[in-house]
């Protein structure tokens, strides 16, 4: 159990700066999810914390020690890999106990610790099996077990669920979260799946192109995205972004007049979440519906605005679509309108 602090961590491969200064203080027992599209540097950041990549600049502290130059093993961390990385020729028990064996613990003690961890993860019956005899979910659990056995201060997860099918992923998501809460071990979890990020995180870091776009609780990021990127990355279906102009105390999208919550003047980016739109005969947004995707609980309506921009609305219940070209009027509460600077993408107001 420990805090982790990243102070302006940077990583350069030759002249390219892949991590451009990330700072973060992780509290003891906190579950942090690092989320972003592929290539944003999230795995590199995690690997720097693990000690698998060197830190070019900045300071990493685990507990009260500077960890920049420590070997992975001395950092008191355990890592769960995307492809599980189980040793194929070792049994489940040997896989879980390998780290302890290296550390030179007596055999009896290793056996007890492995048995305890196996019990926690319901792996007791599988201890003698080889990894290839296990299902994907079981392998994932063994990988978790290998991490737990060492009783580390920090868990590091590198996209651990991306190789599982959708149903198992939901189940393992809950299991990992429960286990982490039970053990109270500080965790860093990398994923590209924003649903995992939303559901699991105490706080999340939205990363893009080597920068932390926003650090905050999932609801914080959803309700008050700090940048246009964070706004579009979090939320499904993703936010509609329109270029509008503020004048005469309103926002103008072509000749559609929308309320102006910040009183901004001049061109500005307006973000509207599809699920915040409501049908309204008086609504200012006029959308031509081209395609309906019924999901049961709600229906996604895809279409375009009079200005020609694509637009998506998510309405509760089932909406049958009469043969194409239907026109729908929508409105949105000013509280749910997000404005971003046209040039920098930073949140306004």
């Amino acid at each position, binding site marked *: 159990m420990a805090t982790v602090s990243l102070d302006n961590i940077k990583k350069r491969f030759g002249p390219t700066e892949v991590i451009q200064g990330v700072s973060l203080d992780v509290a003891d027992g906190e579950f942090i999810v690092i989320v972003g599209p592929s290539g944003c540097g999230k795995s590199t950041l995690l690997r720097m914390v693990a000690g698998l990549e060197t830190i070019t600049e900045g300071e990493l502290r685990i507990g009260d020690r500077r960890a920049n130059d420590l*070997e992975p093993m001395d950092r008191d961390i355990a*890592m769960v890999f995307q492809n599980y990385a189980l040793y194929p020729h070792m049994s489940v028990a040997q896989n879980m106990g390998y780290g302890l064996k*290296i550390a030179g613990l007596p055999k009896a003690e290793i056996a007890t610790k492995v048995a305890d961890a196996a019990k926690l993860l319901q792996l007791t019956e599988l201890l003698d099996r080889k990894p290839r005899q296990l299902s994907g979910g079981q392998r994932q659990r063994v990988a978790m077990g290998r991490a737990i056995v060492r009783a580390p201060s920090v868990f590091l997860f590198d996209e651990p669920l991306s190789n599982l099918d959708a149903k198992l992923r939901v189940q393992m998501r809950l299991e990992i979260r429960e286990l982490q809460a039970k053990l109270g071990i500080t965790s860093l979890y990398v994923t590209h799946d924003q649903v995992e990020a939303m559901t699991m995180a105490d706080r999340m870091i939205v990363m893009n192109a080597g920068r932390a776009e926003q650090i905050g609780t999932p609801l914080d990021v959803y309700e008050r995205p700090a940048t246009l990127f964070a706004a579009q990355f979090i939320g499904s279906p993703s936010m509609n972004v329109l270029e509008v102009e503020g004048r005469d105390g309103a926002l103008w999208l072509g000749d559609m007049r929308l309320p102006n919550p910040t009183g901004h003047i001049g061109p500005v980016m307006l973000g509207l979440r599809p699920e915040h739109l409501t049908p309204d005969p008086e609504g200012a947004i006029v959308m031509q519906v081209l395609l309906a995707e019924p999901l049961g609980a709600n229906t996604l309506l895809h279409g375009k605005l009079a200005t020609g921009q694509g637009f998506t609305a998510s309405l509760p219940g089932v909406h049958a679509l009469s043969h194409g070209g239907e026109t729908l009027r929508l409105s949105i509460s000013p509280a749910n309108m997000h404005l971003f600077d046209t040039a920098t993408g930073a949140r306004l107001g």
Partner: protein
Amino acid sequence: MAREITGMVERRGFGLWLTHLVMIAGVLVIFFPIWLAFVASTVTQPEIVRPPMPLWPGDQLIENYTAALFAGVNVPVLTMLGNSLIMAVGIAVGKIIISLTSAFAIVYFRFPGRNMFFWLIFLTLMLPVEVRIVPTYEVIAGFGMLNSYQGLIFPLIASATATFLFRQFFLTIPDELAEAAHVDGASPMQFFWDILLPMSRTNIAALFVILFIYGWNQYLWPLLITTDPSMNTIVMGIRQMFPSGDDVADWPVIMATSILAMIPPVVVVISMQKLFIRGLVDSEK
């Protein structure tokens, strides 16, 4: 297309007979000389030289083989078998150790000139033993290793082929495995012993078979550096049994020696075959 394949698998009637006929004929053609050698090793010298040559085993089996094993022509065959065994095992084990460690270095360590070293090793693949045999002889003679096991084994140990094979195999092992071991606190050598080596088991077995036979069948090199008959290996030793001049060749003993020379490689192939077929069936990666 699909029909042709089922046809091949479920060939019946005439087709079945034809394929077996061709197969049996092929086996007979290959097996006949070995059979003749075996027959010749069980009869007496006069029976061999008097035409027609016998086609069925005689009654001298035990006598001929005893003579070959314990007396031989220049040196007992048992000694030559022992020499060959030491050389073949030495070469196979040595090559495997050297190429495992060099492939490990090339794949898992970043050091200056890493690629250059790999290509240098790879280049030597293109030079057959015969091309560098004179300088190699010079070196071995300079070290005083003529007529010794070291002299028989060392020059043949470096192996670009095996290094290349292990390199290719190591490259298929996911990096995450090395990283997991790193996080588990394993040193590079612990990773090598505990993870890489057990995973390479089947490759090692397959290579051992190939390299053992390669070592066993060495002819030119042992011929050059062993002048003392007690250091002869069996493959070259058979040739040494032919008399120079007008002496009569002792064919039954020579043939018995040939048969004996075949046995160890056959045993190695058959016993190791099981191991690497099992390795192929439940491949673990």
